[in-house]
């Protein structure tokens, strides 16, 4: 917890947490690779770009892997958090801030000034960093690179090499190893290779948009944009199948898997944002803020994003649907009534069957949002011309893409890793996480079980929770942890020195178990207290 920042007089940073010679050596290799990338950005390449790119990426990779081996291999398998609060980069020191600024700068350039990376515009060929990736891009998908291809390649590389580091760090922990292999696999296969190879299949007569099968609406907020839906429909059966798959992903597959396993099946086993947070972001997980006040802010922000994304998507789809039911059954009015009906159904279901599981403010919040959405739907239904309510649909879509898609998920979400922790986007901004979290809280078998009275309130679990959950506040009361934001990374359980926490899927009965007196005391007293 960062409240009361006053450092106790004597509890200061020791100066022995320097790097070993080996660590410095490997770090040097990695830095050379990074500097090569940087130089390429300034159009300085001294050799054939394929060789240059491969060399730079290789240096970065062996730098990270060598550094990991030098850090962990000579130590026994077990928890490796020595010195985390002393090291400048992991404790918001100078290095942490510099890294944060550098990352943020990179994201600003990537999203808003890609020409600085060398992206060729108006038919001009690429230069700089983007040009460096042209040969690789052509080899993979037949086209020159874009800034997104460069980003995707580096992103995937980061998940893989830092994933290997993570696996080495947690080599005693089977759950952590499998989970990390899973995110590496989904990133490399589903997010990177498959879409690239799919686009290779494209020809003049057959066009399929890039599809990352695991990227589900509302995380990919552009899924139901007009151009995308049209190109899918134009691509015939395959495209239609993909379109249908994307709809059943969010409405059928996701609820079933979340019911069975909690949202972790997605957030810390499949998702690319989660994948980067769990691998490259792992050294920063302890920087998430655990204060109660921040939790309150979190709930308002993330649920506002959900509402925003639902409205935006509804408006977008509404804008390109027809009005005449004789041409196609799905008209503007049918669609809006459908969305309104679905939302009302979910709202009513929760209020009737799960009311007792919600806190008072959650109820107010839900009610508030529900009223807002219905009011706006009403506006849509009765105002059938294309000037849709207060904003133009295209404006709404553009604002969402800018604020949420770029600034929040990219610039802040990843750029601020060393300042706010590794899951800022997942915690405060991701609408997908909010929807899965809502299911996890109310309709899921998943929970983190607390082991009777064994908790010693040490705080390792809370400290290392990347989502800012104060895990200890539940564990020390003997209560299970059932929180919508929990991504099920399992690190709380791993760092617990007393074997108190276990992620599991079990029956709904006793899943939420507020207790007054912990196990271990007088049985009669426990009974008495828990009845009161």
């Amino acid at each position, binding site marked *: 917890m960062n409240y009361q920042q006053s450092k106790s007089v004597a*509890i200061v940073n020791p100066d022995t947490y320097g790097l070993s010679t080996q660590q410095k050596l490997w770090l040097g290799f990695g830095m050379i690779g990074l500097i090569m990338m940087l130089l390429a950005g300034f159009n300085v390449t001294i050799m054939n770009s394929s060789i240059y790119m491969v060399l730079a990426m290789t240096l970065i990779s062996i730098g990270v892997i060598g550094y990991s081996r030098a850090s962990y291999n000579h130590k*026994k398998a077990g928890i490796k958090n020595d*010195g985390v609060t002393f090291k400048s980069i992991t404790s918001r020191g100078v290095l942490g801030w510099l890294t944060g600024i550098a990352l943020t700068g990179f994201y600003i350039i990537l999203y808003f000034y890609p020409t600085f990376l060398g992206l060729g515009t108006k038919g001009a060929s690429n230069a700089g960093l983007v040009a460096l990736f042209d040969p690789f891009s052509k080899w993979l998908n037949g086209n020159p690179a874009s800034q997104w291809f460069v980003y995707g390649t580096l992103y995937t590389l980061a998940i893989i090499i830092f994933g290997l580091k993570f696996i080495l760090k947690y080599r005693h922990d089977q759950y952590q190893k499998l989970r990390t292999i899973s995110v590496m696999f989904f990133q490399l296969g589903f997010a990177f290779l498959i879409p690239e190879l799919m686009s290779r299949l494209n020809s003049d007569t057959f066009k399929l948009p890039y599809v990352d099968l695991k990227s589900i609406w509302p995380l990919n907020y552009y899924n139901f944009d007009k151009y995308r839906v049209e190109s899918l429909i134009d691509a015939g059966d395959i495209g239609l199948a993909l379109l249908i798959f994307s709809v059943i992903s969010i409405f059928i597959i996701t609820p079933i898997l979340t019911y069975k396993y909690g949202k972790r099946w997605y957030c810390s086993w499949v998702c690319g944002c989660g994948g980067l947070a769990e691998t490259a972001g792992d050294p920063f997980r302890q920087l998430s803020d655990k204060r109660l006040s921040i939790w309150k802010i979190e709930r308002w922000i993330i649920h506002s994003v959900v509402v925003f994304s639902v409205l935006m998507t509804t408006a977008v789809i509404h804008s390109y649907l027809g009005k005449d039911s004789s041409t196609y059954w799905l008209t503007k009015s049918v669609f809006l009534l459908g969305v309104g009906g679905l939302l009302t159904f979910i709202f009513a279901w929760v209020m009737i069957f799960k009311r007792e599981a919600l806190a008072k403010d959650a109820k107010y919040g839900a009610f508030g949002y529900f009223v807002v959405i219905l009011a706006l739907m009403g506006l849509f239904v009765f105002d059938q011309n294309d000037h849709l309510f207060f904003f133009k649909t295209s404006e709404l879509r553009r604002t969402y893409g800018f604020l949420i898609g770029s600034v929040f998920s990219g610039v802040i979400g990843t750029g601020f890793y060393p300042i706010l922790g590794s899951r800022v986007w997942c915690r405060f901004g991701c609408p997908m996480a909010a929807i899965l979290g809502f299911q996890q809280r109310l309709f899921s078998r998943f929970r983190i079980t607390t082991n009777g009275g064994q908790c010693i309130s040490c705080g*390792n679990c809370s400290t290392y929770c990347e989502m800012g959950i104060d895990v200890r506040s539940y564990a020390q009361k003997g209560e299970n942890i059932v929180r919508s934001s929990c991504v099920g990374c399992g690190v709380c359980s791993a760092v617990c020195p007393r074997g108190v926490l276990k992620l*599991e899927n079990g029956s709904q009965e006793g899943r939420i178990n507020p207790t007054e007196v912990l196990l271990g005391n007088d049985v009669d007293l426990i009974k008495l207290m828990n009845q009161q």
Partner: protein
Amino acid sequence: MGHIVIVGNGISGVTAARHIRKLSNHRITIISGESDYFFSRTALMYVYMGHMSFENTQPYEPHFWTKNRIDLKKSWVNLIDHKDKKILLENGEIMAYDKLILATGSKPNKFGWPGQDLKGVQGLYTKQDLEQLEISVPNNKVCKRAVIIGGGLIGIELAEMLHSRNIPVTFLVRESSFWNSVLPDSESAVLNDHILSHGIDLRLSANLKEIHSNDQGAVKSIEIAETGEIIPCDFVGLTAGVLPQIELAKASGIATNQGILVNRFLETNIEDVYAIGDCAEQQDTLPHGRRSIEAVWYTGRMMGETVAQTISGHKIAYKPGHWFNSAKFFDIEYQTYGIVNNALNKPKSEMQMHWKHPEKNICITVSYDKNDKRFIGINTFGIRMRHEVFDRWLNEQRSIEFVLDHFVEAQFDPEFFHSYVNEIQLVFTTILSKSNL
């Protein structure tokens, strides 16, 4: 509505305060000279190791105390005037109470070793101890070697702490094998190996004779009693157990023995003065073979829960359930439920079965009664077990066969961890069937 004053803001005092607040409208004041806010004492080691900041060890945010109307006072207490129901604070302030709860905790044992008060010699118990440690042993340049005296839980934690900063450690253990005053020999042997494998210079059957001083009055070396060997060092950690902190009670005329004497209602000999946690000593026998002084986190918490009932008008005796505990020895997690005696204390009626993984540091001991085959306790190393299940089985007085058959229900290891249930069941069933012949 009375004024409840609690001396000590550790787990015992804080638990009492929290529960009194839940059950009553009394005014509550917690006094501590050690720290502004409650922190987890067991987590101090992680602050030194850099896993957590000190603030991370505080389970409640500052607003928790105001919201729950629990007043915090930072001061030491000099004297209790129980005739006038007042306490005298170090700063001269006098505070009246209606009921007083003493939760003063423990302090490190010192056995009158020559040199035990030198500079660079200390125990590890309080926040101040941690701060002193940071000054005395910041790194391996200032401290070329540290010696730890006493092979208990704090001793091995201190060894792990110093080791995390690459400080060479010599670990003097009085017993012939680490913690075999508690553990069966086979388990103790696993820990010896594990300590050595971390590069700790473990000396078994070794007692401290003397701590030598340099000309600045700081530690220079230690001498081992058995061998006369002199080990040069810059720091000595005294971790030969703890004993109840009773000076305040004693000076104020409250009955003490080793600890502050209490009856089953946690009342001292003085009316309206209670004692809970590490500092309390039970005068009467407790159920389940529990000892009269138990300096562990869980016991302090349970006494806090219990005394809160009594103070809130529902008088109830302290009646702890079955013994349980846990610890971590470097990388090996340990859990125990029920009673598993060491070789010395093991009665003839207690039978033990051991299983150990051929390579890994995973092992288990199950104890049962020879006569009625009743399960009486379990120790596990590197395997997590469910407290709730073992507590239930102990209450239900299940047989050893039942426990073995249902062992899988008690597993608490994370998902995908390899389960050794089959091997364990096979080995133990074989032992059992042989012993039945």
